[in-house]
C-alpha cells in the first residue's frame, strides 16, 4: 500500500562536507597523450663484442660475472670460443681497444678476465663430447687456431670432424711460432685436449699434398684448409743468403721444438711485428744480445703493445728508422746489417706513416740476423683459380671458388692474429653447415643477423639458435661512449697484469705474464659498463617522475606504461649503458 501523497517527510539532503575531498586518483588522466616521443628498451651491442674478431659475447659473460655466475660465464665464453686460455694470454685483444671504459679510466682488462675463465674451464671436467647427429664428414687441414676453431664449432653442431696435422703435435702457429714464455705448453696441451674431448679427432703427421688430396676429397664431404702461413718473406737485399741470416719463424720453430741454435753475441732482428718481438725475446733467453731493427718508429710497430713493452723492459735494444740495405761479412762470417737511415713521411694507404730514405746510412753489428718481416702461405695443393694475390681467396663464409672446399686463417691472407684465425674458423664452420644443409634441402637461418654490430664477427650460438642470453628488442648497433652515462660509475683504474722478471739463468722460458689472479680478475670484470645491455640497475624506474615504469611481469625487464609516460626522456638519459632509446615510432 502506497503512502498518501503529502504525508511523507522528504529525505534530508546529505550534509555538504566542510571541505572538498578527493574521490579519485589522477590516474584518470591519461597524461601519456602529451608525449611526442617515447622510450623503448633495446639491448644494443657493446663495442668489445663488435671488436672481437672471434665473435665472443664479452659483454654477456661480464654480465654473468657481475651476478656471480662464474661457471655460466665460462660456459657462455666456451660456446663461442674454443681456446680462451690461449687467447687470454696471447691475443692482441681488439676488444679492449674498443672498450668504452677506455674513455673513462682505462679499458677493462678483458684478456685477463678471459684468461681466468679459460683456465677455469681447463681445470674443470672436460665437456661431454657432442654426439654426432650429421652424416657428412668434414676434414680440417691444419690444427692451428683456425682449424681447431672450425672443428670445434662443427663438432658442436653434430658433425664428425677429422683434423689433419702435418707436424707430430697439434697447435699450428700456437706451437710452432709462439714462445713458451708467452704460452706455456701445458696450457696449450690442455686446451687442445679439451677441444678433442668436445668431439674433435686430431690426426698428426698427416700431410695433405696434391697427390693425397683426391683421396681425402672422396672420404669427406667438405674440406677446410687452415694451413697457415709459414714461408718467411725475403727483403730482396744483398747478402740475404749468407749463413748467419735466418728466417725468424724458422728460428722460433727450432727453439719451440727444444733446439738451442747457436746465435753468437749480437742478434739483429729485422721487423716490428709480433714475430720480431718473439725472436728478440727468445734470443735474449738464449743468452744473446738482440737488437730490433725497424724502419719506422715505435708508434708504427704492428706488434702487440704489451709485447713491445715487455721486450723493452727485458732489455731488448731497438734501432728505429733503419731499413736494411745489405748484410755484410767480415773474415767469412756475418758482421752486420747495413741500413739506410729513414724518416717518416705522410701516412700511406694503410694509415701508417711511410718511411722514406734520408740519404744517410748506418751499420748494425750482428753475428746473426733474424728476418721477421712477414710470412706468406704455402699455396701447394691449391689450383690456380682459388688463389688471388698470393693467398687463397674465400667468400664471407670461408668458401673458395671450388665448391665445398673452404679455407681460412693465415692461408687466406687474413690479418695474422690468433683471434682473426679463430673468427675465420668459426665463419667457415657456419659456412660449411649452411652449405651442407642447403645441399640436403634444409632451410638455413638468415646469416645477416649473426654479426655483433655492423662490422663484428658472427655468433655461432645465434647460428645454432642456442644463445642463452635474454635480449630485449635487440638492435644490432654499437653503443658509443657518448651513450654511457658515466655519472653512475666510480673511477676504478684498470688492474695491471702481474709480470715476472726474466730469470735468464734459472727458468728463462717461464711464463712472464701471470694474469690478474682469480679475485682481481673478478674485480676487473666488475668494471664492465655492460654497454647497451640492461642489467636491471633500476635507475630508469627510480628517476621516472611519472611513476610510469615498473618491473615487468611478462618476461621482459621493465614495463613502461604508455598511458602515463610523458616522453620526457629522463630514463634514456640516465640509463648508464645506453639500453633505452627515444623514438617517434609507434605514436
Amino acid at each position, binding site marked *: 500500500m502506497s503512502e498518501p501523497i503529502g504525508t511523507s517527510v522528504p529525505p534530508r539532503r546529505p550534509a555538504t562536507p566542510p571541505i*572538498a575531498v578527493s574521490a579519485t586518483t589522477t590516474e584518470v588522466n591519461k597524461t601519456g597523450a602529451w608525449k611526442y616521443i617515447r622510450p623503448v628498451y633495446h639491448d644494443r651491442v657493446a663495442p668489445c663484442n663488435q671488436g672481437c674478431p672471434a665473435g665472443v659475447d664479452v659483454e654477456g659473460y661480464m654480465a654473468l660475472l657481475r651476478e656471480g655466475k662464474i661457471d655460466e660465464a665460462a660456459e657462455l665464453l666456451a660456446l663461442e670460443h674454443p681456446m680462451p686460455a690461449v687467447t687470454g694470454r696471447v691475443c692482441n685483444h681488439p676488444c679492449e681497444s674498443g672498450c668504452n671504459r677506455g674513455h673513462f679510466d682505462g679499458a677493462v682488462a678483458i684478456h685477463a678476465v678471459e684468461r681466468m675463465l679459460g683456465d677455469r674451464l681447463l681445470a674443470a671436467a672436460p665437456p661431454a663430447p657432442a654426439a654426432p647427429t650429421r652424416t657428412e664428414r668434414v676434414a680440417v687441414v691444419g690444427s692451428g687456431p683456425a682449424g681447431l676453431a672450425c672443428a670445434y664449432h662443427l663438432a658442436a653442431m653434430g658433425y664428425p670432424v677429422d683434423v689433419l696435422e702435418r707436424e707430430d703435435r697439434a697447435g699450428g702457429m700456437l706451437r710452432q711460432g709462439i714462445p713458451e714464455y708467452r704460452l706455456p705448453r701445458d696450457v696449450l696441451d690442455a686446451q687442445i685436449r679439451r677441444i678433442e674431448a668436445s668431439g674433435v679427432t686430431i690426426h698428426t703427421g698427416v700431410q695433405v699434398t696434391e697427390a693425397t688430396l683426391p683421396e681425402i676429397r672422396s672420404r669427406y664431404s667438405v674440406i677446410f684448409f687452415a694451413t697457415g702461413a709459414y714461408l718467411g718473406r725475403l727483403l730482396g737485399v744483398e747478402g740475404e743468403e749468407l749463413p748467419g741470416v735466418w728466417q725468424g719463424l724458422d728460428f722460433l720453430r727450432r727453439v719451440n721444438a727444444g733446439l738451442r741454435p747457436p746465435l753468437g753475441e749480437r742478434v739483429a732482428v729485422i721487423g716490428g711485428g709480433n714475430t720480431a718481438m718473439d725472436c728478440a725475446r727468445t734470443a735474449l733467453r738464449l743468452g744473446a744480445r738482440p737488437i730490433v731493427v725497424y724502419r719506422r718508429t715505435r708508434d708504427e710497430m704492428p706488434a702487440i703493445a704489451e709485447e713491445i713493452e715487455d721486450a723493452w723492459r727485458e732489455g731488448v735494444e731497438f734501432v728505429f728508422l733503419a731499413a736494411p740495405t745489405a748484410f755484410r761479412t767480415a773474415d767469412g762470417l756475418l758482421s752486420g746489417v747495413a741500413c739506410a737511415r729513414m724518416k717518416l713521411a705522410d701516412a700511406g694507404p694503410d694509415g701508417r706513416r711511410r718511411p722514406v730514405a734520408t740519404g744517410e746510412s748506418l751499420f748494425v753489428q750482428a753475428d746473426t740476423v733474424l728476418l721477421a718481416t712477414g710470412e706468406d702461405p704455402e699455396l701447394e695443393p691449391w689450383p690456380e683459380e682459388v688463389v688471388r694475390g698470393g693467398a687463397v681467396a674465400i667468400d664471407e663464409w670461408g668458401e673458395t671458388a671450388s665448391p665445398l672446399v673452404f679455407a681460412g686463417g693465415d692461408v687466406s691472407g687474413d690479418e695474422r692474429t690468433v683471434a682473426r684465425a679463430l673468427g675465420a674458423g668459426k665463419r667457415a664452420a657456419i659456412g660449411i653447415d649452411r652449405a651442407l644443409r642447403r645441399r640436403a634441402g634444409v632451410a638455413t637461418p638468415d646469416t645477416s643477423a649473426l654479426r655483433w654490430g655492423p662490422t663484428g664477427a658472427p655468433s655461432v650460438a645465434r647460428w645454432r639458435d642456442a644463445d642463452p642470453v635474454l635480449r630485449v628488442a635487440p638492435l644490432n648497433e654499437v653503443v658509443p661512449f657518448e651513450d654511457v652515462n658515466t655519472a653512475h660509475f666510480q673511477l676504478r683504474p684498470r688492474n695491471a697484469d702481474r709480470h715476472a722478471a726474466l730469470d735468464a739463468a734459472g727458468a728463462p722460458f717461464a711464463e712472464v705474464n701471470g694474469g690478474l689472479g682469480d679475485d682481481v680478475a673478478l674485480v676487473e670484470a666488475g668494471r664492465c*659498463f655492460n654497454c647497451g645491455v640492461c642489467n636491471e640497475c633500476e635507475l630508469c624506474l627510480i628517476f621516472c617522475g611519472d611513476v610510469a615504469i615498473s618491473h615487468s611481469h611478462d618476461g621482459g625487464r621493465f614495463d613502461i606504461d604508455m598511458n602515463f609516460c610523458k616522453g620526457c626522456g629522463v630514463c634514456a638519459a640516465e640509463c*648508464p649503458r645506453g639500453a633505452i632509446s627515444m623514438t617517434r615510432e609507434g605514436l
Partner: protein
Amino acid sequence: MSQIVIKDRIPERELMTSGHLACPGCGGALAMRLVLKAMGPQTVVVLPACCWSIIAGPFPQSSLRVPLYHTAFETGAAVASGVRAALDMRGETETKVMVWAGDGGTFDIGLQALSGAAERGEDFLYFCYDNEAYMNTGVQRSSATPWGAWTTTTPVEQPQSTAKKDMLAIMAAHRIAYAATASVGYPVDLIEKVQKAMAMRGTRFIHILAPCPPGWKFADEQSIELARLAVESRVFPLVEVEDGDRWTLTPAEAATDADAALAKYIGAQGRFRHLKPEQVEQIRRNVDERWQRMEKQASLSD
C-alpha cells in the same frame, strides 16, 4: 662494483600516482615521489599554493595516496602546526606532518609563518622544492631566483639583479634540529636525509633543488643531469646543519671539476643564455665565495 647501485636503498612503495599534471621532466614531481617513499604512508601533506597545487590534480582527484591538504600561499607552516596539534589531540602521534611548498611559498610569501613555526619548534617536516621562480604562474622571479637569471619579470635587458636568498642559513639561524639541502640528482642522499630528519622532533627543514625544464629552459631529459651539475658545480651544495651550528658538507660522489660543471650547468639553460662571459665569471666567483664560507662553517663544526 664500479656502478653506483642504488636500487636497494630506495624504498619500493609508491605513494604517488601517475596521471599527475607536472610537466615532462619536472624535478618537483620526482622530488615528491622520492620524499614520500621515505616518509611512508602514515603522512599528512600540507600544500600551500605552488606548482604542486596543480600537479596534484583538479577536484576530485589527488595524485598522492596519503592525505593532502591544499591551503593558502602564506599558510603552509601555520596549517601544519594546526594539523599537528589536531592529530596530537586525537592521539595520532605516529602520523607525520609535512609541508610541501615551492620557493615562492617558502622564501617569499610563507616566510613569516615558517619562521614563527620554527621559533615555536612546531613538530613537522618542511620541504621546499625550489625551482627558483613562480613557475606555475608563468615564470615570475622570486627571492630564490639566482643572480643573472631570466624570468618574465626579470627580462634579459634587466635580469635578476639580487643574489638568491640564503634560505638554509635563515633556517639554521632559527637553531632548528635539522636543516639540509638535497637534490633529485642524488636520490639516496635525499632519502637518507628525510629518514634522518624523521627520527628527530621539532621543525625540520629540507631544501630540494627541483630543475624546471620550461622555466629554466632546458631539454626535458636533462633534468637529473642539471640537478647533478648544480651540486658538482657547487651552485647548490649538499649540506646538513644540525641544531643550527653543526654544518656538514655532503660530498658529491663523483670527483669532478667544479668550474667545468658550472660551465655546463649555465650553458645548458636558456635562462642564462644572455649572460656575457664576465657575468658568468661573476657567478663563478659568487659560487666560490659561498662554497668557501660553507667550508669554513663546516670546519668550525668539526
